């Protein structure tokens, strides 16, 4: 799976209240959640971001609450992948469960906003401005889940087998 897009840069500790403020959590439809993505620090983000763009962030991306609304909001804007130095653990599980790919790599200092970046999710190879950066591999168990089409499809299959 290869994604190519332009970079949006965010710093360290981008928490779930930034990704989607709690006052919108009564909503479950992706479109509404996407409209308010990153609103507290970048009110126009949802208007400016383009389908296929990629988020590059610092450490501990997605810290805070367990709200699955956070990966839903990011995916709703057409962002297929987030590259960060590290991710908070609940967000990590949620993103994969919701089909948002997360890549652990340090390209923060290399990338500037708007740069074109290319990422091969399966091999973990990132290309930016002539540099090639190797990402931390996605854990084998997560890869199995991705290949099964996410946790819900995995569960569906399991239930059908039972029948």
């Amino acid at each position: 799976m290869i994604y190519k897009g332009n970079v949006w840069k965010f710093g360290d500790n981008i928490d779930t209240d930034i990704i989607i403020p709690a006052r919108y959590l009564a909503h479950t439809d992706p479109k509404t959640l996407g409209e308010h993505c990153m609103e507290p620090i970048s009110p126009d983000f949802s208007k400016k971001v383009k389908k296929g763009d990629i988020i590059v962030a610092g450490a501990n991306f997605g810290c805070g609450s367990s709200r699955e609304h956070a990966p839903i909001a990011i995916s709703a804007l057409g962002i297929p992948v987030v590259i960060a130095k590290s991710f908070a653990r609940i967000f990590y599980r949620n993103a994969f469960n919701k089909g948002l790919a997360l890549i652990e790599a340090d390209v923060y200092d290399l990338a500037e906003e708007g740069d074109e970046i290319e990422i091969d999710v399966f091999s973990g190879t990132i290309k930016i401005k002539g540099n090639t950066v190797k990402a931390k591999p996605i854990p084998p168990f997560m890869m199995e889940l991705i290949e099964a089409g996410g946790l819900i499809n995995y569960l569906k299959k399991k239930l059908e087998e039972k029948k």
Partner: protein
Amino acid sequence: MGMTITEKILADHSGRSFVEPGEIIDARVDIVLANDITAPLSLEEFEKVGAKGVFDNERVVFVLDHFTPNKDVISAENCKKIREFSKKHQIKHFYEGGNCGIEHALLPEQGIVVPGDVVIGADSHTCTYGALGAFATGMGSTDITYAMVTGNIWFKVPESIKFLCYGKWQKWVTGKDLILHIIGMIGVDGALYAAMEFDGEAISTLSMDSRMTVANMAIEAGAKNGIFKVDEKTISYIKERAKRPYKIFESDKDARYKQTIEIDVSKIGLKVACPHLPSNVVDVEGLKDIEIDQVVIGSCTNGRLEDLETAANILKGKKVASWVRCIIIPATPEIYRESIKRGFIEIFMEAGCIISPPTCGPCLGGHMGVLAKGERAIATTNRNFIGRMGHPESEVYLSGPAVAASSAIKGRIAHPEEVL
């Protein structure tokens, strides 16, 4: 080779005699929890998988505590959906009306969670139950759906970090100050993916309410869970409440830790976390002339009886500063009732406080105390992220109940000695 309490509970629930950090296991869960903002997504997924029912109607718990009493139509619709699901599937532990409290205060109090359990909740502060010697962690709605249907979930066994606490506690200092001190020291990702295990002579003198505060904020250091060993205090708390038999696990002497951090609690004073991270921790004495508009004393972190008692002792015979809104939120109906019996509510009302029904409300900027642009609050809650309690240009300072109550009187962040 020995195991930690976290490893032992996970081994026990995955039918193994031994597990080690990094292993992926499939574990049985004792309790699966969701609330009014996370359950709707879980129920959508539940529909998608076409499951017929939940794995056990006595082990799936719904607590509608975040935007309740319903703040708007969409919140009301969400609660209706969960209510109908609960009726259909005869969910035993459904809390919405006069029996409803803040989930992480309610479940231990009602004996729904017991020592040795594996508990997962679609709420990051599910880690609170580690105070009872259970393994408890937050997950998202989809993982919760999986566990609701199967009674199992996968885990990566975490490494453990031991916090060995010794020394005598200073006056006023509680579990909140300890956990803020620790987060200030190790940072908001200082325990990323790890289990935080709290041990030592200073922990044995800590009340159950304070232990729950400490375990509650383990997530604020990025941890998977926070956990305490079971002692006489745990037993006396749980014995009248437990709805199920429980099992006590204890770390082996030769258990392996990623790190052991020793903490002399006698050196910890009253702490405040400044905007906009729970790790921006300073001593309260270091904050001069920080004027406030609002005080919130409540939440899954500090809305228990001990917290309200501390606040009442400070507010007794005093008045809240005229320009400050001081909102008191007893975390459960039992805490509320006991606060009336003990005269705390009378003290709060005499002081000019607002008494709220149990709700998470203002902690996450939902309702019942949202901040305007430029406003500043001090709260006994758990997060002070940008815009957490309302407008992106509002500010939240985090503290324990003693500092929050004293600040309400002064109209600025204050030490209890300034008002007593």
